[in-house]
């Protein structure tokens, strides 16, 4: 097995699928000649040609409309937003057409929308968001948020295979920072199955994306056995794994980088309260960004995104409760 970065793992998975299946093609801004804003598709146009790696005009609406239409016609488009934040331009195609087409007309819309998301690099309010909960709320869309290179590859392949529109939230902060062993052969990581990042007995952290690593660091700093569950996808999400963990530890911290109100953590916390009330030994605790746009200032951004210290404090509160 080779050691790959999170970014290389996505690139490898995508390339393998394009080699395997001629219906798979890439479209987005600067995905061809330039190799993509973050170089995920670097060298793709040389290998697959300009008709399978399409540089699109500066219009997210056009990209999403093109992906939706070609998927309807039987293709397997993989569209890229340069930043997840820009997806709002394509809301109508995503939410009104792609998400509902299968129910409305019975025709599947099998596209993947790659969404580089997340902050931590002073990208400010337009380049740092984690909008997964907005789309998890829309029936018909799937939302995948891998945290490890191995999952990034297995889940990009699963997303391409999936007959539904899948939003693939790849965390920019992990792109080159996180490396790991990734199998070279093709494999599929099932969407909707959580991954036990660390087993523990005293308190559970339910999280996904870059926060998996924040939780991991925090767990080292508390005197307790912390279980970290990486959801890997928020729609569908692995309720069984979450409830099993809660029933084991009886104390739970739901952690995400997105803002708090209406964040997907609220759905998880509510489900725990409904399904595992009698197993709780402490109130379900949520830790998320405050309800504000992501600030530019490095100092403010650090105060905005949950940090290791914040997680440590929340864990201690739960442990001592």
């Amino acid at each position: 097995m080779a050691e790959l970065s999170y970014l290389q793992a996505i690139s490898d998975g995508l390339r393998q699928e394009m080699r395997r299946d001629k219906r798979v093609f890439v479209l987005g801004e600067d995905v061809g000649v330039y190799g993509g804003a973050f170089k995920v598709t670097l060298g793709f146009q040389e290998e697959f040609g300009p008709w399978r790696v399409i540089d699109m005009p500066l219009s997210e609406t056009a990209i999403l409309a093109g992906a939706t239409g070609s998927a309807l016609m039987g293709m397997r488009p993989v569209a890229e937003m340069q930043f997840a934040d820009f997806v709002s331009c394509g809301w109508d195609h995503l939410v009104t057409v792609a998400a509902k087409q299968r129910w409305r007309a019975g025709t599947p819309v099998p596209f993947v929308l790659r969404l580089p998301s997340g902050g931590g690099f002073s990208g400010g309010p337009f380049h740092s968001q984690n909008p997964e909960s907005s789309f998890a709320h829309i029936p018909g869309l799937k939302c995948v948020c891998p945290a490890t290179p191995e999952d990034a590859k297995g889940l990009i392949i699963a997303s391409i295979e999936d007959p539904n529109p899948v939003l693939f939230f790849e965390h920019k902060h992990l792109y080159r920072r996180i490396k790991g062993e990734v199998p070279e052969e093709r494999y599929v990581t099932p969407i909707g199955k959580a991954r036990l990042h660390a087993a523990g007995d005293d308190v559970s952290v339910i999280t996904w994306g870059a926060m998996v690593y924040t939780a991991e660091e925090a767990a080292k700093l508390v005197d307790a056995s912390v279980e970290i569950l990486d959801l890997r996808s928020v729609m569908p999400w692995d309720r069984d794994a979450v409830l099993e963990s809660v029933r084991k530890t009886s104390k739970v911290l739901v952690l995400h980088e997105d803002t708090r109100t209406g964040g997907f953590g609220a759905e998880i916390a509510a489900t725990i309260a409904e399904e595992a009330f009698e197993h709780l030994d402490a109130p379900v605790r949520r830790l998320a960004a405050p309800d504000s746009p992501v600030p530019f200032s490095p100092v403010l951004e650090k105060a905005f995104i949950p940090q290791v210290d914040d997680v440590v404090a929340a864990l201690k509160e739960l442990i001592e409760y």
Partner: protein
Amino acid sequence: MASTTGLEVVMPQMGVSVSEGTITRWLKRVGDPVAADETLLEISTDKVDTEVPSPGSGVVTEILVQEGETVAVGTLLARIGAEGAAAEREPEPEPEPGPAAAQPEPAAPAPEPERAPAPAAAAAGNGKAFVSPVVARIAAEHGIDPAQVPGTGTGGRVTKKDIQAYIEQGAPAAPAAPAAPAAPASAAAPPPPAAPAAPLRPAGEGETIEPMSAMRRGIADHMRRSLDTSAHVTSAIEVDLSRLVTIREKLKKEYGAAYGVNPTYLAFVARATVETLRDYPYVNGELRGDQIVTRNYVNLGFAVELAEGRGLIVPVVKNAETLNLLGMARGIADVARRARDKQLTPDDVAGGTFTITNPGGYGTFHGTPVISQPQAAILGTYAIVKRPWVITDDNGADAIAIRSIMNVTLTYDHRLIDGALAGRFLRDLRERLESWGESDYQA
């Protein structure tokens, strides 16, 4: 107090673990006038029977819970309206006679009578310790009162780990009947009585069925739990009380004239027992988990039967080691009277370290009582019977004499107390009862 409007009378909280009470008797009917603090009704809980005074003066306008019904603490029992008519329309009831005023005692978080360890710290002054859902569920599954579990969480809260550890080290748990899927009932409430597994058979030919009172249910639970907890063994000894009979006849007159107190045989036996307990700390002790608790004081419980066979209660005379015969006689008379008059507070039945039960009044000469948990032993005293008795005179010659003999039993928890220890305790007690003079009892 001025007459008031719209007062509500609720089922009072009679101690931390008491979750419900039964209306035994309404002393007022709808339409009856009632004065502030006048007794309105009598209630029975699994801890105590008591009277509920009116929170204010007025007229009973509504009675919502009938005699014999059992309702949760806080349930509205009755309404009291203004005297005369509702002519004057005061917008608000006066601030002081809120529902809380209906409680005869400022419901202090009294510890459980059965177990001495301090209850989990009460939360925010509402008299109830918070019990988390998982702890409530585990407690219900194992038939444990969470208030008995030492808590290590915030404010002494019982955590899941606390109750698991408590169970692991052998909590006095009744094997829970296939518990009804534990409804996350009111957090601080003790586990609901185990539901009968099979549907109850209706009354058959010639049978009558009456509901169990809260007190009866409390007794039933406690008796079962005690037998499931302690290894009960009973030893008996015969005591020649002839000398004591003479002393008592004399003191009875003196005490009656001087203090208006009757020095009962029970008071004499109690006095000698307390003295003997000094030498046998285990008999006055407790098994708490895997630890042995002994004490430098004796809180002496006395089993008191309530009128009409309505049950039995064990009020406690605190610090009995400080009492001489007069103090003991007064203490016993006081708690016995208040038990029969339903004037006991939860405090009066809490914290006992040793108990005396005296069923001898009916002529029984022997018995095997059940230990009041978490105590280690209970003394039984029986009828004093004149018997032909072999005595040895000063010359060493045996003769048969008529003596007043009482059988005394010690029922003890064999986990803590060995048979030999129990035997020595009874021997020493007998020695005191046979040899003590007037001044020994009055010391």
